[in-house]
Each structure stands twice: as C-alpha cells, then as structure tokens.
C-alpha cells in the first residue's frame, strides 16, 4: 500500500513535537475526517530555522507531516510557500489514491503557519491559523 519511503518517515518521524515559543502555528483537518496536523515554526531572518509537527491521523498523515518538516527546514518562507502537498507526496514516492485527499495536507499546514507568522509580523493578534477540511467522502 505505502511506499518504503512513506513507511520510513512514518516509522521514524522527524521533527515531532511543538515549539515552545513559535513564530507561527498552523492546523489543518478535523477529527471527523480522521486527520489533524499541527505545525509550529521558528523563523529567523525570513528563514525557517526550526519546525515541528503533531499529527493525529493515518500513516500517510504522519509521513507527510514528517516529510514536509524536512522539506521546509532551512528554506525561506517564500520558498516554503512553494512546497505543495503534491511535492510532499512525490518526495515520498507517491501515496495511494485514497490518501491523496484528506491525508495529504501537511504542506497546507505549513502554509497556514507561515501565514500566521506573517500576520503576527504585520501586527495582527493572530493566535493560530486553522483550517477545517471538508471530507468529501463523508458527504
């Protein structure tokens, strides 16, 4: 079902946890869907110097979360905004079709965290960016 790469990132997830004093926080998903991903980032001079994830979800959800943290760490926020869910899936060697929707949202969570960081920069009192995901298959 899953590629070796997925299983590797699932079994030994990188950057697990939550930064204590993050510059940006983003959360996607909802428990109805079965997947929730929460990303915290540290940004220094426009570069993501640290990033952590917490995820409730299936193997794909955990692996994509883990993968995306590796992909954006050390990147500028602009570069990180270019990383798509699709890039993440590709970096993992692909995902099963039924996992491409709900469980592949890690890049979205990063984008939300960056948005949150940018809003804080611009002075908005933004605690965290959240995005509920519609689960089509539950319709």
């Amino acid at each position, binding site marked *: *079902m*899953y590629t070796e790469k997925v*299983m590797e990132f*699932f*079994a030994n*997830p990188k950057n*697990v*946890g*939550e930064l204590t004093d993050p510059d940006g926080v983003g*959360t996607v998903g909802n*428990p*109805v*869907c*079965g*997947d*929730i*991903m*929460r990303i915290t980032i540290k940004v220094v001079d426009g570069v993501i110097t640290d990033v952590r*994830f*917490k*995820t*409730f*979800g*299936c*193997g794909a*959800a*955990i692996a994509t979360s883990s993968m995306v943290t590796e992909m954006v760490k050390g990147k500028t926020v602009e570069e990180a905004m270019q990383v798509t869910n699709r890039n993440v899936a590709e970096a993992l060697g692909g995902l*099963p079709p*039924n*996992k491409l929707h*709900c*469980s592949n949202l890690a890049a979205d969570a990063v984008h939300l965290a960056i948005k949150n960081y940018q809003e804080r920069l611009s002075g908005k009192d933004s605690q965290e960016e959240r995005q509920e995901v519609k689960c089509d*298959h*539950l319709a």
Partner: protein
Amino acid sequence: MRRVYLDNAATTPVRAEVAELIHEYMVKHFGNPSSVHWFGREARRGLDRAREQVAGLIGAHPDEIVFTSGGTEADNLAIKGVAALKGIQGKHLITSAIEHHAIIHSTEQLERQGLQVTYLAVDEHGLVEPDHLAHALRPETILASVMLANNEVGTIQPIRELAALCRAKGVLFHTDAVQAAGQLDIDVKALDVDLMSISSHKLYGPKGIGALYIRKGCRVEPLAHGGGHERKRRAGTENLPGIVGFGLAAELSRQELPERREHLEALRDRLVQGILGGISHSRLNGHPQLRLPNNCNVSIEFVEGESMLLNLDLLGIAASSGSACTSGALEPSHVLLAMGLSHELAHGSLRFSLGRQNTAGDVDYVISTLPGIVARLREISPLHAGRE
C-alpha cells in the same frame, strides 16, 4: 520476524487438511459434477458430501443449502432474490444500521429501485431491540434481515426473538451468520429463520465459496442464470475444490465447536483485560457479554486506528481497524457510529479477531507491544496534549 495474525474476522488461514483435500480435487477428482463419466461422478460424490457437511453445521437439510461464491453473494441472493419475487415497488424491507456492506449496499440498490427500507437503530452495545423490529413491521414488509453477529464489534443479536416476530406476521427473515458460523452453535430450525448466509473463508475454509440456507418452501429468484446447477437456484459450474474444502472445514468446525469456543473466549478475555488494563483512555466496543468468542474491539483515545495498525504490523501483528473492506480508506465505521461513538473514538478503534491457531503467547505479545505504540503515537498527537 514473529508474525501474529489477529485478523481472523477478515479471513482465516485454510487449515492443512482442508488445503490437502482441495488439492486433491484440483488435480485428481477434477471432474465437472454434471458429467456422467467417472470423473464427473467422483466430483458429484464430493459435492453431495460437502452439502451434507455444510448443512450439518447449521442444522439444515442438504437440499436447503445453495452454494454461492461467498458471503457477499449469499447476502445479495437473499435480499435481491426475495425482492425480485415479492416485488419492490410499494414494498418494504427491514434491516439494521450495523449490517455488513453486502446487505446495506444491496438494500440501498433496491431503494434506488423503489423499495422502502427501515434501518433499525442499535443501542450503545450494538444490540437491535426486538420492540423496534415489532414496530417497524408493516403489511407490505417482505423481508427482515438482521445479522447474527456483527463483524466489527462481535455483538450477538437475539435472532430467535426477532425471527419469531417476523414469523408471526408472515414476514420472511434472513440472518447474515457469516461471522457466527464456526464459532457459535447455530441451528436454523431452533432459530426458525428462513434464510441464512455463511462463508467458508471465515471458518478456515477457502475463499470464494459460501452458502445460502433457504428453508424448504421458501423461494428466491436466482441472481445468476445458466445451467441448472444448485437446483436452478445458482447457475455456474460448481467450484468443487472450494465446495469440498468448505464442507470439510464446516464438518471440523462442527466437531470442534465447544473446545474452539472455550479456547477463543479465554484468549479474548485475556486480551481485553490486558489492553484495557495496560492503556489508559481505552474502552471496549460492543457488548460485554453477548459477543463473538473471537472478537476484541477497542477504541483508544487520541490516536488514529491505521497508524496503530501500521505500527503493530511493523512488529508483526496483524489486526484491523473497522472492517477489512474499509480499512484502506479513512471512512469511520458505520457500525461504531451507529453505536453512538464519536468520530474520534471511531477512528481510534482497533479490532483484534482471534483464530483457532492463536495462543496465549500471541495475546501476551500484543498486550506487551500495544502500550508502547500508543504512547509514541499519543506523543505526536495534537489531541492528546495535556489530556492525561
């Protein structure tokens, strides 16, 4: 790697003596039972014996057994076969909210054609209340179908009571006994049902073969037309290796039933206690007493089922989350939702289903392994933070 198979509700390994017999019927007694020659007659003898063996498992007469390609086809044949004869437009059917998809998707298909269907609710343990059935019965009701035991949570329904209510109103009653057969002592006459589905691969027989019990005098329109096989109730060259394997597996199940049940119940109780005792915020799904001997279904808070499954798999343990058919997708189990579980708890469910080949050592391996997995996953779960 040590491999512990605890997904026997999804499918069971074929036992050695059954596999041997099947082999014999593939390479030696390979005839077509319709043929008049020696090869055909040998095949026919095998077919007749298997029909007796399968009938014997559920207390039926051999003529009341129609072999199908599995439990799904048996369910389809019961539901659609009755509807095709009794009519669809203006008619009504009763089933439960926790049936297998083979039932629910069949009734949904008939709904699209105009049949009215009532899906009986269940209580928090997954039980159908006979009173609810009694109230749902209408003059235009053609059939009620309630499963004998649920495949996900193992809850055993009061079939005799439910069937009696239908009999009193002249309504046909079907029960899906796919999970129950081979584990519980089933007697179609004592239960007084009209139709019953069973499947070989759930009782250590081969896949691709099942049976529908059709009570003498009860008729269904066939789904498959062709040769006059199975007394014109199911066309197609008989899957003879599958049938003789099913027969032997049924016969052995009948003989071993009491000890098998005892063995499974002991393992099950050990497993349930071990998990609930070893993992905080965990709970048993299904009925505490009225449950299949082999079923242990638990919900573990703050973590998702598939991620537990994958971790278990990495350690050689095979289990499932929800039913096998949907565990590839993240749809929460309709059974757990019908029992009132939240989506989170439904997503956090694990089913361990024991088999005759399992040992206390297998169970202890799970009990010692699962808590560590749960702890690691909770550590990365955003839902868990500060909840302990």
